[in-house]
């Protein structure tokens, strides 16, 4: 994986850890809903933050298939590469 992918993954793990304040260790395979209990509003606000960090536009309807941190990182990477 490229360095930028690692950066994306690290940012997501850091942000999700601080957002959820839970004892769960956030990794690439952590499930956003079943393990972190991230509600839809928090996820949408996180997306806005990611958009600003990487200067990309992430449509919220693209989140329909996202369940894990890795899938979210993949989505960000895909959009970042295309922009």
């Amino acid at each position, binding site marked *: 994986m490229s360095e930028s992918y690692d950066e994306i993954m690290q940012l997501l793990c850091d942000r999700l850890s601080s957002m959820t304040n839970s004892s769960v260790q956030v990794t690439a395979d952590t499930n956003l809903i079943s393990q972190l209990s991230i*509600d839809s*509003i928090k996820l949408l606000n996180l997306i806005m933050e990611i958009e600003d960090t990487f200067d990309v536009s992430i449509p919220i309807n693209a989140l329909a298939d996202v369940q894990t941190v890795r899938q979210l990182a993949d989505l960000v990477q895909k959009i970042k590469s295309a922009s």
Partner: protein
Amino acid sequence: MNLLEKLDAAAAARKAMLPDGVGAFGIPIEEVYSATEARIGDRRVILLGTNNYLGLTFSPECIRAAHEAIDKEGTGTTGSRMANGSYFGHRALEREFADFYQCQSAIVFTTGYQANLGTISGLVGPGDTVLIDGDSHASIYDGCILSGADIIRFKHNDPADMEKRLRRLGSRIETTLIIAEGIYSMLGDQAPLAEIVRIKNEYGGILLLDEAHSLGVLGETGQGLVEKVGLLREVDFITGTFSKSLCSIGGFCVSNHPQLDQLRYVSHPYIFTASPSPATIASTRAALELLRKGSHLRKQLWDNCTQLYARMQETGYQLGPDPGPVIAAILDTPQQALLMWKSLLEHNIYVNLILPPAAPEGKSLVRCSVNAAHTPEQIKYVGDTFAKLYSTIIS
């Protein structure tokens, strides 16, 4: 987990959040006495949780018009606007809305929800983009999802954030629909329309403004926020509902773009549903006439709003930023909000309880909707009761 077990899990989560709060939602109203009073259980309550902003639900003109329409045209059209459901009244109401907004054309939908669903999904599609305020109503979100367009949110009522996200779209701005609301239903705050229009004019895009809560409330003739700030000509599409100031049910879209008419042929929420009943259309036409001439009603409404907002603010409640017909007390926890809601009901006042995630930023709200028919005595009693409860529940 099967489909039914998922619903059981959702119900359990809801009950766990508020074990005693289930009754707050969908509360049975046994009898309605007037625009401001009804019976809930054995209590005669002040209605402070309806969207009846001009207090017209019992206006003799609207009731008479509805009666006459039923006598002449029956109880329902039993068909789509596309087929047999466009009577004289439906077309007349469209002409009257176009005239009211000095626009080329108007479309009437069966509900306000469908007005947004049908307009948005008719205007944009896959490959297009919608740029929406983060606190948009569910009908806007659902319309965007139905359209298949890419949905980008900007921070609520933050023009700088909107500008940043619009600029980021680059060449895609050409196929971008920007959406805001005249008054937001949760906190009652108004969109910074002048800034939004400036940004749209600088970068491009098409602007849709939902005047659901501001129709009849803002502007000299009640057009809404567009009239209050003098920007009617700068907004491409205006949607709204009949179920608030117009006291029936239905919705509309008006525009000066001749392409609006094409929505009749592509918009599923317009086509694949029965049209509004003749009585609904007739009472809405009567209400629109009263709304246009209703500067005295708006004055009464605003007298009531400013009085209650000031009283609650003086008491110490945290409120939405703008005084208006929607006055939301922001509380720390769902439990506190539920206790406040129940206590108000025990004092014969009905308001709306709004819990996360329906309220913005995880807040819990006790939301009041003031109307023009509330008497000064009712407003004073409500203000006094909120003051009394503040000391026992908040401080």
